[in-house]
């Protein structure tokens, strides 16, 4: 079954909906130390599966969700995930991202992907100044948020009772 669903391209990337083949690279990321900032317990493959199925389910339930990031000319190889999503218990919608593949570090690809997904959230979903939740120790994501023009919002609520989370808020008008 193939679905007619939003996907779009930037200069270098295609952003598309999650597919079953993305489970393997997602699971490799989830089981590695790189996922320490986005989970609250020790990783297991079963948890990875459930988290990914949940992200896919959001597309069905809400008509939007996280996009898988791929190189434009290699659409089968998932590099990470970025997008507007609104999971249970979040006080407001979030623009979140995870970078699975270390090979794209330092290439500006994460910036290009998040910028595009944010543009989608503003233009298509009519979102107004969404947040991004980032662990205080996650320096790479903090740098990315700041490069995107997001600023700390110390008064915003977040859903993580047991984690040291910073709330970044995206600008009213996109640069």
């Amino acid at each position, binding site marked *: 079954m193939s679905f007619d669903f939003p996907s779009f391209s930037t200069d270098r990337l295609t952003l598309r909906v999650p597919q079953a083949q993305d489970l393997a690279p997602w699971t490799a990321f989830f089981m590695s130390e790189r996922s320490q900032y986005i989970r609250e317990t020790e990783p297991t493959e079963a948890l990875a599966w459930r988290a990914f*199925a949940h992200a896919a389910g959001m597309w069905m339930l809400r008509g939007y969700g996280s996009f898988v990031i791929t190189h434009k000319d290699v659409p089968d190889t998932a590099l990470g995930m970025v997008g507007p999503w609104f999971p249970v218990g979040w006080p407001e919608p979030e623009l979140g991202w995870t970078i699975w593949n270390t090979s794209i570090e330092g290439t500006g690809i994460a910036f290009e992907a998040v910028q595009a997904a944010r543009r989608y959230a503003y233009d298509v979903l009519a979102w107004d100044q969404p947040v991004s939740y980032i662990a205080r120790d996650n320096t790479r994501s903090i740098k990315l948020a700041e490069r995107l023009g997001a600023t700390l919002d110390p008064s915003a609520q977040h859903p993580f009772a047991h984690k040291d989370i910073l709330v970044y808020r995206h600008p009213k008008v996109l640069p």
Partner: protein
Amino acid sequence: MKPWLVPSNGIPADVTAKLHAQLPQLETARLLVRPARLVDYPVWDEIMKGPNGVFLGGPWDDRGAYLDFAQCVGSWFLRGFGLWAIENQQSSKVLGFVAHGHEYGCLEAELGFLLIETAQGRGIATEAARAVRDYAFNVLKQPSLVLYFDPRNGASRAVALKLGATQDLAAETQAKGAAIYRLVPSDGGMEAYT
């Protein structure tokens, strides 16, 4: 209503509608069995937090129940089959769900059924699960379906038997604590196992 339960409007609502238009619907004598949507969530929540919740991996809190729902729905995306809602054709009321999925660690596709209390005892689960079973075998050509349930759940066992499932004692010994029944397509076509 909690914000994450409010259906989208505008373009994302169109995306959802377009997606559902591409998915199958099954009609039986009394029921419409169709892919679950966000608006069905309160029924799921009621069942998972009701007296049968303990049979379904519970007790469930808000977050756990919702995540489980979203994961079951996500199977439509990842697998091409997933969580079905059971709708009364006449009233359009959602009476429960047939969970058709293939979860992590499971060797084959699984069929499960869950109903609100007032819909129990009327053959609803059997009627809906039979339609999904036939869809799985005749359209998807799945080679088998496994049914897992709590052995204390006599209603589920009765449905399993009415569907023509047979108990897999060897697997039960390994699984420690779950009743495991298996369905396979019959050479005689649909009627042979109704």
